[in-house]
């Protein structure tokens, strides 16, 4: 659906070339929610803006749905942009226009529908985002979450196939963030829309994304299905994001565990295995005792997962390990 072929971007600042994105090859499948995570300056915003050419690539090809968008002329680019929706961190609504006029704007600019058709489409969009009663209001009269809903309605107006989200929840409080993410997931499911979102919060990735790419210094350092990247991060940058999301300080934890006797393991369950009574059964059969040192049971998008850090003491520890390894869990022996 969205293919990057050796795409790179450099900015010229004071006579010197500053690389923003190193040559990158990337394939985003249609219909999925693809997350890009990175700190500010990691190049994620550049990568996102290359998709609809708000940033011009310095080199490489971007092929979307079989069309080389890097080769489009001004007119072709405008028509292509009408098929790509975009929402922003600070909403970027026009303060001078009502909610309905903001949502109607992409349709009026495209000039393909009659006034009556536009009115009907706007009413339908506002109903979808739950703002049917606010059509005549101005953006300044709305809360942050409502403004982002208007942004989403506006982005969907031209029935795009792709929705780009630029830190869409970073200016919102946690509760509103949840509602907006839920709306995005709903849109992805019901309209089959491909969503590319950038964020600096791992929690946003965990809640809505199917795949994630982690960026650092203009390079994608790690990518894969969210569950794999989230539960088994390989790159130090990814590990930092995951630990931040879980509010875990590794050094502190290491000190805490120092005086705990026995073997220390980390078990990762995924899917239905999360709810299986595995630990109890193995403890009974092998005579080991276990204590839970740290743990978390949660969901990644719709998949339940659990991650437990255990200390095993007494009994037949070796055969307990064999039993665990044979079961549907991922085992890491920490000590």
């Amino acid at each position, binding site marked *: 659906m969205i293919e990057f072929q050796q795409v790179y971007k450099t900015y010229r600042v004071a006579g010197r070339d500053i690389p923003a994105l190193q040559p990158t090859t990337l394939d985003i499948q249609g219909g999925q929610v693809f997350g890009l995570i990175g700190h500010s300056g990691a190049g994620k915003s550049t990568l996102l803006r290359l998709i*609809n050419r*708000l940033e011009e690539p310095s080199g490489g090809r971007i092929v979307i749905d079989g069309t080389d968008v890097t080769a489009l002329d001004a007119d072709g*680019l*405008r*028509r*292509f*942009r*009408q098929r*790509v929706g*975009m929402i*922003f961190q*600070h909403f*970027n*609504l*026009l*303060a*001078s*226009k009502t909610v309905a006029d903001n949502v109607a*704007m*992409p349709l*009026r*600019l*495209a000039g393909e529908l009659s006034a009556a058709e536009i009115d009907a489409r706007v009413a339908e969009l506002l109903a979808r985002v739950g703002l049917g009663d606010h059509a005549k209001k*101005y*953006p*300044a009269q709305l809360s942050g979450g409502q403004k982002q809903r208007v942004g989403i309605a506006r982005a969907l107006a*031209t029935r795009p196939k792709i929705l*780009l989200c630029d830190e869409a929840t970073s200016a919102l409080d946690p509760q509103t963030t949840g509602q907006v993410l839920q709306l995005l997931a709903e849109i992805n499911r019901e309209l089959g829309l491909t969503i590319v979102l950038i964020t600096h919060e791992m929690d946003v990735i965990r809640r809505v994304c199917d795949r994630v790419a982690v960026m650092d210094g203009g390079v994608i350092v790690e990518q894969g299905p969210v569950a794999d990247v989230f539960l088994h991060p390989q790159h130090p940058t990814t590990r930092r994001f995951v630990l931040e999301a879980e509010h875990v300080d590794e050094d502190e934890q290491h000190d805490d565990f120092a005086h705990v006797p026995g073997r220390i393991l980390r078990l990762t369950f995924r899917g239905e295995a999360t709810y299986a009574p595995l630990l109890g059964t193995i403890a009974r059969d092998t005579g080991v005792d276990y204590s839970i040192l740290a743990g978390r049971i949660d969901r990644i998008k719709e998949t339940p997962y659990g991650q437990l850090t255990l200390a095993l003491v007494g009994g037949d520890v070796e055969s307990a390990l064999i039993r665990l390894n044979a079961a549907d869990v991922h085992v890491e022996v920490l000590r």
Partner: protein
Amino acid sequence: MEALFTHVDWYEIWLATLDTLLMLGGSLLFTVILGLPLGVLLFLTGPRQLFEQKALYGLLSLLVNVLRSLPFIILLIVMIPFTVLLTGTSLGVAGAIPPLVVGATPFFARLVETALREVDRGIIEATQAMGATTRQIIWNALLPEARPGIFAAVTVTAITLVSYTAMAGVVGAGGLGDLAIRFGYQRFQTDVMVVTVVLLLVLVQILQTVGDKLVVHFSRK
């Protein structure tokens, strides 16, 4: 009342007020017609803007700065041949309007440029992302968003024009300022001076109030 305003010829005052209003209305109209596109052009060609054009921006900027640094009284006289060419006369209300417009347009254009710069870049980016043409970005996003700022600019320009019209007496344009100088100052008719000054004050007050109301109305806050 009669004793207080012995020198005041109310019919003269009425004619002078009409002249001032005519000069103000005519010059404000042409200032906006010429200054708005010039301001938009200054904005678009400016540094890091949609149509960054260093040479053109530099040239326009220089022209605006030169015209703005020229005292209006000098401009009024320098402009005489051009005014005659344009209106057939260098005298009266018609003779005053061209220099008033040339004096106020660069000032207004700068204010428009500033008002447009106040528009959030994110708005322009969002409109670009919708697939808008540059013309659509200007008409559908930039100008509506800058409307409060542009109304404020029109208000400030109108008030500046009121004070310019006072000097237009030099070319025999008449008006309240001219009356104040010829009768109030040169003939020591203090009562005429007081009346004209009060009328100018009322005019400025009305312009500011109406302007402020429009700015608030279009701010949508």
